[in-house]
């Protein structure tokens, strides 16, 4: 948890605390419009086999989202072992000309997409040693989050709920413990369903939120992207402003108690 005005990841400042994925959109034009509306500076991409039969001149994601304009965050989505994740990110580094900032995620179950933290830890060790700046997706287990920090990851990204579920923050208490323990940025990654969820994550003291489906699968992705940008900003300011204490009732009304008109 940090009270810095900007989000600092691996030594670089970002004014936007909303990180977005680039998957599941109707086309690249919609992807671009949604990302512009979100104000995000860091965008995730997946690394996949090139379609060899592809016709030349077919548009690519990189043309719509030039790497000069955004910070690319290549991910290891779809990897189920540490070896596959490491191999994918080494290819990503070559693809993006030595770019070191990456999102590590190693999944454990294709049905739920729940992370495999044992493989994640193994991959994180190799990647950190190999000079990568690792933003790591993990479960909301405070002990694992701390271990990933100790390995040398540059940000820890616990889930709010399962990838693509839109269930929101299911265990704010665990997130709070992770945030309290961490000296590196904590970002909620996965599970956010609506702008309210994003605001709650920020009010808990998260440094940022990473999302894809909540925007891409909204009825109006571009409007939702704007809503998310505002929610992240509002949630952050609400956190910094410091909320009033909760109490069951208050003997102190907001309006003056004197000067009331009375009968008789």
């Amino acid at each position, binding site marked *: 948890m940090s009270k810095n005005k900007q989000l600092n990841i691996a030594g670089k400042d970002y004014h936007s605390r909303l990180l977005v994925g680039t998957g599941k959109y109707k086309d690249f034009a919609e992807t671009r419009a949604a990302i512009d509306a979100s104000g995000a500076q860091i965008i995730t991409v997946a690394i996949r086999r*090139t379609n060899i039969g592809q016709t030349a001149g077919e548009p*690519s994601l990189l043309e719509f989202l030039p790497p000069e304009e955004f910070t690319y965050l290549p991910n290891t989505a779809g990897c189920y072992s540490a070896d596959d994740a490491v191999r994918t990110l080494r290819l990503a580094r070559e693809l993006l000309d030595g770019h070191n900032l990456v999102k590590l995620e190693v999944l454990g179950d294709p049905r739920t997409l729940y992370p495999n933290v044992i493989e994640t830890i193994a991959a994180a060790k190799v990647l950190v040693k190999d000079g990568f700046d690792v933003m790591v997706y993990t479960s909301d287990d405070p002990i694992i989050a701390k271990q990933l920090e100790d390995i040398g990851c540059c940000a820890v990204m616990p889930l709010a709920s399962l990838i693509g579920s839109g269930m929101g923050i299911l265990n704010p208490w665990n997130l709070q413990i992770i945030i309290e323990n961490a000296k590196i940025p904590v970002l909620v990654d996965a599970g956010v369903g609506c702008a309210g969820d994003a605001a709650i994550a920020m009010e808990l003291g998260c440094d940022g939120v990473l999302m894809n489906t909540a925007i891409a699968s909204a009825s109006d992705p571009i409007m939702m992207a704007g809503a998310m940008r505002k929610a992240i900003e509002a949630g952050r300011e609400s956190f910094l402003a410091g909320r009033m204490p909760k109490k069951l009732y208050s003997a102190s009304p907001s309006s003056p108690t004197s000067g009331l008109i009375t009968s008789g």
Partner: protein
Amino acid sequence: MIIFINGNVKQFDNEKMTISALVVTLNLTEKRLAIEKNGEIVPRSQFSEAKLQDGDKLEIVGAVGGG
């Protein structure tokens, strides 16, 4: 010669070929790619010298939309 590209068998008439030549043959010159040959990354700067041999296994990847 036969080269395995992204898990598929591809037959080429050439007896000798560099990765650069392959990229041209596959119509991929405009694409931003990373290539792994037999499990080892071949840096783009070495495409023109990297020779292919019969039976080589290549992975050719790019960036796509993802979360």
